């Protein structure tokens, strides 16, 4: 009882709320994955990206 009962009754019991929950979490999952991948890429390539060397070429 507790969290799982609440979750089951609110989300998983009906197919409609289940589908909406999947789509909504897919949206946030995509955003989170993109941000995470970008930050990993920028971390690996630190010092080589345009935003790091921009000050040398622009006044």
């Amino acid at each position, binding site marked *: 009882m507790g969290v799982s009962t609440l979750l089951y009754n609110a989300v998983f019991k009906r197919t409609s709320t289940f589908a909406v929950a999947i789509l909504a979490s*897919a949206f946030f999952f995509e955003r989170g994955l993109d941000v995470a991948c970008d930050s990993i890429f920028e971390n690996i390539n630190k010092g080589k990206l345009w935003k790091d060397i921009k000050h040398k070429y622009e006044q």
Partner: protein
Amino acid sequence: MNVIAKSSNLAPYLKASVPTIANGLRPVAATGKVQKKKIAHPTPVERILNDSLNKAILSGPIRIRSGPAASTQVSKVRFAHTDIRVPDFSAYRRESLKDPTARNRDSADDRKTFSYVVAAVTGVGTAYGAKTIVYDLVSSLSASADVLALAKIEVKLDSVPEGKSAVFKWRGKPLFVRHRSASEVEKERKVDVSSLRHAQHDSERVQRPEWLIVIGVCTHLGCVPIANAGDYGGYYCPCHGSHYDASGRIRRGPAPLNLEVPNYEFVDNTVVIG
């Protein structure tokens, strides 16, 4: 001697008749002729195939006989194997239900939530993958940035004097940029829209009244009209004689529609088409 002396002990051995029913002391000796029907025994079936197994199974009306011959010959296959142990499935069972006194209702929501969370995570991953595939597929169909950059042209408006119609090439088609005089604009604005084949007012076709920008392809069969010709002082198509006015509208001839107006915008003294 005592044993021999007792005549009652010797009595069965001294009998002249032959017993046909065992009395426990002497075996039944088959010395006397007994008329009995010979019992036909079925040859025992070797149970190898479905067919031979079937023959071994008792089917149809069965006559149960007792006695030594009957008990050895009845070939009965037992399928109720009470001697086989029920396998242990506890490795596959949920922890919360292993206790035989546990109530199903107490942990039902926990178990269902777990199953649905697994399904939902799979669904989220699938939705993300499907969206990415569809997005990449559709975006691969659209024009790339270099093609889009080439698809625009800039025209300097200073280069077109008043009353002239300049021709440019835009996306493989001729483009007319016409610098209209004030009298031409006045004339086209006064045209009764209801009298036109393709009813469009002059203000719908231009952004700045002195500049008319249309695609130079006749809407009839695609010839290129001649500027400043025809009965209405606009364009004239030499192929089949369509007359367009100075607003590019069809006034006479076979063409069904006005000359097409592309998307354009004025930037200071230039016009960007596309």
